[in-house]
């Protein structure tokens, strides 16, 4: 069972803003998912290679060639704030 502290910590890690009233609901729902995972863990997987991807094939490799051109003006159109071609964000250092 995930307690309120677990939920708050998970939300902090995921940068989700959760109100006090939502915590109980989130806790119940997430706990039921964890319970299902617990059920899955009962299966004996000894000797089974963990699956990294459902497609059973290797990664395709690309040739090392520059194919992208500079389109920063277009890409920056939906940025909140741009100055001297830099994306501006609230200061992230103490």
């Amino acid at each position: 069972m995930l307690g309120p502290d677990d939920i708050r910590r998970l939300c902090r890690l995921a940068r989700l803003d959760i109100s006090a009233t939502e915590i109980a609901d989130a806790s119940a729902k997430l706990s039921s998912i964890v319970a299902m995972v617990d059920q899955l863990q009962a299966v004996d997987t000894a000797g089974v290679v963990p699956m990294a991807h459902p497609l059973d094939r290797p990664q395709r490799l690309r040739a090392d060639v520059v194919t992208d051109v500079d389109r920063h003006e277009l890409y920056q159109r939906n940025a909140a704030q741009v100055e001297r071609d830099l994306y501006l964000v609230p200061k992230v250092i103490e």
Partner: protein
Amino acid sequence: MTWETVIGLEIHAQLATASKIFSGASTKYGAAPNTQASLVDLGYPGVLPVLNGDAVRMAVKFGLATHCKIAQRSIFARKNYFYPDLPKGYQISQYELPIVHGGHVDVQLPDGSTRHVNIVRAHLEEDAGKSLHEDFAGMSGIDLNRAGTGLLEIVSAPDMRSAQEAGAYMRKIHALVRYLEICDGNLQEGSFRCDANVSVRRVGDTKLGTRTELKNLNSFRFVEKAIEIERDRQIELIEGGGKVTQETRLFDPDREETRPMRSKEEANDYRYFPDPDLLPIAVDDALIERVRATLPELPDAKRERFTNAYSLSAYDADVLTVDKRLADYFEAVVKATKAAPKIAANWVMGELTGALNRTNVDIDASRVSAATLAALLDKIEAGTISGKIAKEVFEAVWNGEGSVDAVIEKRGLVQISDTGAIDKLVAEVIAANAAQVEQFRAGKQQVLGFLVGQVMKMSKGKANPQQVNEALRKQLGA
């Protein structure tokens, strides 16, 4: 109480690919902000990463050069954290199954001994962008040109026992990635970065002490300095009854201290999981053999060969093989000149390296080519000019005054080997230095050196010193 320092390094080598590891954007250094950040690098919705094959081959190359095992199947994972220079909210890295693991390098130490350093793993990952905090009031500027550049993170075991060993290991890996041409090794531009895990324990203890991780070590000197400072801090702390806290610390070279980075209480909960956007990397034997065929002679083998084939000291061989291009230059000189390899080594390590450093010129752009230096050494060998005059010629050629022959001709530097001319100079010196001649005749042998010097001075350095010596002895009846 004696203490032992235990150090492991994590080195980030930027892969020398033209395009990024998962996108077709350029990795060129120094471009205007955000002009080399593609939709993939920016983490736009709906885009997918496609792996750069050269990044894989470079990782394999490193693995082969360090006796590592190459994983037939390795997995990309998402390392989740939030920071503005990481637009996707996760860094694509490798966690459980890295492409390369379990190897080692033998590091030569200044005292002649060797330290065997195990390489735990080397994995592929993408770099983050850069944040600029200074120029904007209350804001940070983000440049994502570097985001998505391929990195090889090379993780050593905690096998080093002093700051000097850590520095030597870092230099070793630096030389190696440049030999392999998988990283340009430019520390100023951040192409080669290092974090150090440092702990101390009482000599004899087998259990490791609590470690701290030092960041921002962007020069060989800083790595050594930061480790020494952190070691002293930890020892002082423990001896004073305190305990080391496991944390990340930033080295401040100006204040010569390490201090904790902003407290990120949950920074280490990265919630890694396999990246569903990428399939496993498959490396088969054919690929490994193709990469193996491209391996150059490595620094260790080259150093060994230089000491044997050219009778160089371990020190000389070390200096000459740190940079492959310097080693190639030296060998080109040796092949083209009649002078002994040791002479060529002295010139390459002395005059050439001095001139390159002084003028801040790269060896590839050296103003004195290997062929030219060989021609110059041949002039000394043939007795046309003395070693001292050769330095003057080197300087002139470096400054663009023409070829070796042209400079010798123009400046009239040909060595005087004419017996008549030398005899005349010697006679003049004997006549002008009666007192010294008297001393010499009275048995003071050292005075001969002074007299030789006088003749050399009078000839402006052009007289053949050996002939001067002989002529002096003859005229003095010695």
